[in-house]
């Protein structure tokens, strides 16, 4: 059981999707309940990963290895460490919530919709658990297909444009990564795609890459990840995809998909190409900081709440990248923490936007105002999430941003000052938006009669809010589990870096 737990968690949604496929199309209630049951079971099973996780070892845990394509050297190799554990949990946590949130908002082809959601979950989990470069690439690409359908079929007005743009952008980045993966495979003797093997060959000097080779490989990997993050100036697919996707799609997109990019940087770029990473770090940080400020400024002027949240993602993810490229423990742990925060807070923001969209069929800020009177419960949840997204102390966002800034300060003071201005800007656009939507008099007659949150909607928001507070008050229960993996990552990274500096 212990060995295959990770496999079960990863493929349970796929099995569920196959099960849904066999159900009759018109039994909508059964389909959605079954989808929820499958997603919730996956989450509950993934909790075992959390509780049985050994905090002391930096090694991979729950590892499973099986031969897959021996003539190629590609294996089925999965496992998690302190870095990927929480991203797996984030995925399994958000999926049932998004399934629940789509109970009433999917008006057509519900069966196919829930199948796509479950397939997407398997794809995302696969990306986080894969320890074989070939397997990783397969998950990375395959995951695009259900997401593409989610945006393209169930999305808004310009959904087709957004779906195609999303697909092409991501694909363009990842094919170059594929070339780099194959090249790395041949540098290593052309026998295995196993990440751990290649990594240990690099660290023991059995495999050496020249500076030029490292640089090219780094860039190929990095661009694929940067498009996914998305790092300025590769971010233009994101507002389109976010705005046009259905609520659940936006939540998954912001909550999990973007993290695949930053996860890839931590997992692959840093350990595999330490020298190139150091060499390119100033440029990466520059882009990250531009992204932080640019995203915040553009978010400020958006008339559409969903677009505002979308641009805020560019800004928040800039922080994550900055944290990673500080190369110290605070920075990287902050970055991982911030990935989770952003997944939860931004996911929640999209859910909230979806809730008022279900009521009013508009997302324009000017269409609202004074919602606190007709929708008190809604407004309360909205406030907690807004504050968390801005990074108010005692809520989750603060911990991540603080750690990142701490890490950045150690690395470069100028970065920190510039990045900190992003926090101020985020307070401006979030609070201003919240004020215009919730406070004041009720501007539009129709808003006076809107119903407050239903039980289902409360069920969606309560777990998120609890998590927001827990992660803000007692971050140690999460950070503790990252420590040894991050330490190990940095130890091997710095030993190479020292050589490089000489």
């Amino acid at each position, binding site marked *: 059981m212990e060995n295959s737990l990770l496999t079960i968690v990863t493929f349970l949604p796929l099995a569920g999707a196959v099960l849904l496929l066999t159900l009759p199309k018109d039994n909508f209630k059964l389909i959605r309940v079954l989808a929820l049951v499958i997603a919730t079971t996956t989450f509950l099973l993934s909790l075992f990963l959390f509780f049985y996780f050994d905090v002391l070892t930096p090694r991979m845990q729950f590892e499973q290895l099986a031969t897959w*394509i021996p003539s190629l050297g590609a294996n089925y190799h999965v496992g998690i460490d302190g870095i990927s554990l929480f991203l797996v949990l984030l995925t399994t946590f958000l999926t049932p919530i998004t399934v629940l949130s789509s109970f009433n908002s999917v008006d057509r082809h519900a069966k196919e919709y829930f199948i796509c959601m479950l397939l997407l979950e398997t794809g995302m989990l696969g990306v986080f658990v894969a320890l074989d470069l070939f397997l990783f690439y*397969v998950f990375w690409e395959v995951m695009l297909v259900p997401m593409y359908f989610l945006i393209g079929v169930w999305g808004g007005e310009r959904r087709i444009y957004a*779906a195609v743009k999303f697909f*092409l952008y991501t694909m*363009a980045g990842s*094919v*170059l990564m594929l*070339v780099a993966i*194959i090249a790395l495979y041949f540098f290593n003797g052309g026998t295995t795609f196993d990440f751990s093997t290649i990594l240990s060959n690099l660290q023991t000097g059995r495999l050496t890459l020249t500076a030029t080779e490292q640089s090219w490989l780094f860039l190929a990997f990095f661009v694929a990840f940067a498009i996914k993050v998305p790092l300025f100036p590769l971010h233009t697919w994101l507002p389109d995809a976010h705005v046009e996707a259905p609520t659940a799609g936006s939540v998954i997109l912001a909550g999990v998909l973007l993290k695949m990019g930053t996860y890839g940087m931590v997992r692959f770029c840093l350990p595999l190409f330490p020298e190139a990473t150091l060499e390119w770090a100033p440029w990466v940080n520059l882009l990250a900081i531009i992204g932080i400020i640019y995203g915040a400024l553009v978010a400020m002027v958006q008339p559409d709440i969903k677009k505002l949240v979308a641009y805020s993602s560019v800004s928040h993810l800039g922080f994550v990248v900055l944290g990673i490229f500080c190369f110290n423990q605070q920075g990287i742990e902050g970055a991982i923490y911030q990935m989770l925060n952003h997944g939860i807070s931004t996911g929640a923001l999209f859910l909230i936007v979806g809730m008022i969209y279900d009521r009013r069929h508009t997302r324009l800020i000017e269409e609202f105002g004074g919602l606190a009177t007709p929708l008190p419960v809604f407004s309360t949840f909205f406030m907690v999430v807004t504050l968390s997204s801005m990074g108010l102390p005692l809520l989750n966002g603060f911990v991540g941003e603080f750690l990142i800034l701490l890490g950045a300060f150690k690395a470069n003071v100028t970065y920190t000052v510039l990045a900190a201005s992003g926090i101020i800007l985020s307070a401006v656009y979030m609070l201003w938006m919240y004020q215009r939507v919730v406070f004041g008099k009720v501007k539009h007659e129709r808003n006076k009669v809107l119903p407050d949150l239903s039980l289902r909607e409360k069920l969606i928001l309560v777990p998120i809010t609890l998590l927001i507070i827990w992660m803000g008050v007692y971050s140690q229960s999460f950070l503790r589990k990252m420590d040894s993996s991050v330490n190990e990552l940095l130890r091997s990274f710095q030993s190479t870096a020292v050589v490089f500096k000489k």
Partner: protein
Amino acid sequence: MPENIAFEIQQILPDVILCFFGVFILLAGPFVGKAKQSSLGILGLAGIVAASLATANLVGNDGTYFTGMIIVDHFSIFFRFTFLLISGLTILSSLDYLRRQNINLSEYHSLILFATVGMNLMAASNELIMVFLGLETLSISSYILLGVKRTDPKSNESALKYFLLGSFSSAFLLYGIALAYGATKTTNLELIAKHILSGSADMRLVYIAMGLMFVGFGFKVATAPFHVWTPDVYEGAPTPVTAFMSVGPKAAGFAIFFRVFLVAFPTTYEKWLVLAWASAVLTMTLGNVVAIVQNNIKRMLAYSSIAHAGYILVAFVSGRDDGVAAVLFYTLAYALMNIGAFTIVALISRENEQKISIDDYSGIGFKQPLLAGSLSLFLLSLAGIPLTAGFAGKFFIFRAAIESHFIWLAVVGVINSVVSVYYYLRIIVIMYMKELPEDYVPVSISPGVAVVLWLATFGILQLGIYPDFVISLAQGSVLNHH
């Protein structure tokens, strides 16, 4: 020696069987009523099954036969199986099509069998004359197949165009063969290589011969700049024949392309490498870019088939055993996905092939889930999305290119496959994201078509998820060359 002759004939037994069935179908045709024409197709399938068994029997008989004309090796056996699969699927998907289009020609099925004989002999030829004989057997059969819709001017145009350009390219090839013979005094591939290696050949003539053959083969496999005939021919032909043409003759063309160049001209590698990579880049890019603007799905798939020929050329450039194995794998994968896609195109096109515009696929995604689902899989596979045969095939090709340090060529290749994603996705977009017209009449899937779709789907997933079995076979089927 009588038993010796019997043993030699055994080496071409699959072709003998196919010829026998082909002639038998021709003779039986007039005695079979219009309503029972499909029984002739079943007979053709029986011939293919019998030929497959005879082909399996060839394993282990490695060597040359008929005074060096015919070679039995794993390379040829692998290709033989691919061809038999292609022909079997073509006949299966044609049964329904011929009935609906009211084409009652018993010759149809025999011509497919004769074309298969041609392809088989091409793959098994060890000799330039044999190459030419196989090629002509194939070509003459396909000239007639393309024009099988006698009353349709487009089909006539297609047949005539292919005939003219095909004859032209045959002339190029023949001229090349003549010069190679002039330079080395032999048409045997291994002896040509021997003469070149020993320095007794006139190299100027050899280079010209290689250039002419490159042009001749380039025409047959539709690589740029010799691809111009493809869209018109593919568009006008009856759709199952288009499916057949886009995979069968193309695969056979590549089989001799590889055999002739790698076996007969091994050391002159460097000289034609520039030619090959330039043609690869041009073919991929041109095919993909022009496919983007097509609104006729048959033309779009025609340009896509040009692009795929370009990917195969990338493997050719790598010139390694891994490249040859990749091509064996790729032609099989490509056959499955392209025949699958064209089968659905034939189905959707209705009577007289009226609905072949991309817009005719609007909204069928949720109306005809099996049809649209399998077409989506075929298109994703053509686009090279992981877990499909198309991805595995491209992966092996680019891997071979990178192994030979043609990283830049692999980069051009992968960028091209991103471009191709655009037009393949376009059909999926239209199927799932556009509205269904109100007067849409669902098409029914006949058993023959269902078998083709299930086989193609199964094959694509099998090759995509667990390619090890086939790629191991392919790796064991590379050419023996210097």
